[in-house]
């Protein structure tokens, strides 16, 4: 258990009482509505973009940072003055844009962020790929050995993506009752509702001492899976991945543990 976590929710028996939320008593105003997010493509031709790859903060953003290390940014997404994501592209695949998360998005910003980002991309057949992860410690499978059987990377595909000819059938779906949450779920929801081909790849994150880790193996799964779905140009190497992991600040979502992790007595 990470003791830096605040208590996530009030006790369940009171969580459904309708007088516990002061903000609802006044007229609720969307604090983070679409206008709050500034999506800037720096004169990039958005009509030419046919694929967007979103790296969720965690293994997803580490992989993309390793791929685009040293390359310039072609776009940004800000919420007021806070940088939420940066965008990159490759000369060999100019119609593919990669969005790298800069931080964990607040829960109430997730839906607005997904809308703001995807509504700016006019291609009606835009393909959306999300790089996310699942925690091995929280994974539920009827057969315990299943999660340790290669391949362990899982995916979720929207109905339009499933019908597409290049959609992979060799990547296992994330089985029920496991669910995707956060920004990955918001993006997939947007795609399903707006009939876009959407695909999320979930790489397993092992845990140690109660902390979910980002390892080189976690990252390797992405490259292999992207190759299966026709995205061949994203290549990283182990050195770049190590640098991307090491550059992350220690903390709850860092994906790494330091020497003092869980030390109770000095």
């Amino acid at each position, binding site marked *: 258990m990470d003791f830096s976590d605040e208590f996530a929710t009030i006790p*369940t*028996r*009171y*969580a*459904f*009482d*309708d*007088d516990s*939320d002061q*903000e*609802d*008593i006044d*007229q*609720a105003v*969307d*604090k983070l509505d679409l206008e709050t997010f500034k999506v800037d493509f720096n004169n990039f031709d958005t009509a030419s973009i046919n694929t967007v790859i979103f790296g969720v903060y965690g293994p997803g953003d580490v992989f993309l940072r390793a791929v685009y290390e040293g390359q310039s940014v072609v776009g940004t997404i800000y919420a007021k003055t806070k940088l939420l994501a940066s965008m990159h592209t490759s000369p060999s695949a100019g119609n593919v844009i990669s969005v790298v998360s800069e931080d964990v998005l607040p*829960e*109430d910003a*997730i*839906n*607005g962020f*997904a*809308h703001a980002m995807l509504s700016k991309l006019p291609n009606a057949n835009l393909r959306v790929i999300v790089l996310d992860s699942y925690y091995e410690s929280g*994974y*539920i*499978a*009827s057969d*315990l050995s299943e999660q340790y059987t290669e391949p362990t990377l899982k995916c*979720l*595909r*929207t*109905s*339009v*993506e*499933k019908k597409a000819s290049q959609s992979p059938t060799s990547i296992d*779906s*994330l*089985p*029920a*009752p*496991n*669910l*995707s*949450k*956060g920004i*990955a*779920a*918001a993006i*997939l*929801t947007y795609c*399903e*509702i*707006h*009939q876009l081909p959407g695909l*999320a790849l979930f790489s397993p994150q092992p845990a140690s001492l109660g902390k979910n880790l980002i390892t080189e193996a976690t990252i390797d799964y992405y490259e292999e899976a992207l190759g299966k779905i026709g995205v061949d140009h994203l290549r990283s190497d182990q050195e770049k991945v190590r640098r991307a992991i090491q550059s992350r600040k220690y903390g709850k979502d860092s994906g790494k543990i330091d020497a003092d992790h869980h030390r109770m007595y000095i």
Partner: protein
Amino acid sequence: MNTFVPAQGFDPELLKGSTLIIPTVSIANVPQLTIDLYVNSLKLERIGFMDDASVMPVAGIFEFAPEKGILVAYEVYQSEDRKFTFVQQRTPILKGKRQSLLANLESFISIYDFSRILIITSTDASRRVDIQMTGVPFRLLASPESSVGKRASEINLPAYEKLPEEEHQLPHHPESEAEKDIPYLHGSGVARKLYGRLVSKYDVSMLIMFALEGDNIQDSVEYAKCIDAVLGVVDTGRAADFKWEYPASWDWVFGAPLNPALYD
């Protein structure tokens, strides 16, 4: 704002005249379990989504029909005969967004001209008083003249008792006139607010179940049976061999099976 987005190929005109069943996220999540029980047992068609930023997003495999992509947090289903429309909300409302969700839901209701509305909710069973301890754990809030109210009388479904609330149990914020006549239902989420918004404008009823947190699968079956007794959702033609089918995901609702290696 109407947030309903019809599924590809669905004509929203088919919503007109149907009975709308709306669950609220409430204690033990029994209403939501009940809706999924209906979806799986009757193979309800997903006819659309509520594209509402007020709920937490979630996505998973569409276990009712895996070839159909993913399920999301806020969906709309309909029975084959088009008589019953079910909203399913799988996640809580985001902080500060309740009014927004209620307004969007009311807008959806006003546009599509449903014949009647049934809100299904649950309330904390530990807050029951003596007279509520025996008998069925269901109560109804409805006008006696409504179709649901009349049916409830026929099957002896009790009305929710009007009890004097203790001072510390009363909500400490201003209420609308409509809400003041509605009993306070602990743990029922936005049910009371939603009912208060709709009661003066539509044929709306609220079915309440007393529930406690725990293994609520059987509660959902009982709730589905109660709804059926009131509305007759299950086609009587197949009632003889009909049985409730649990979604496969309910097998592991309390987590993965134990790893026997722990005990080696």
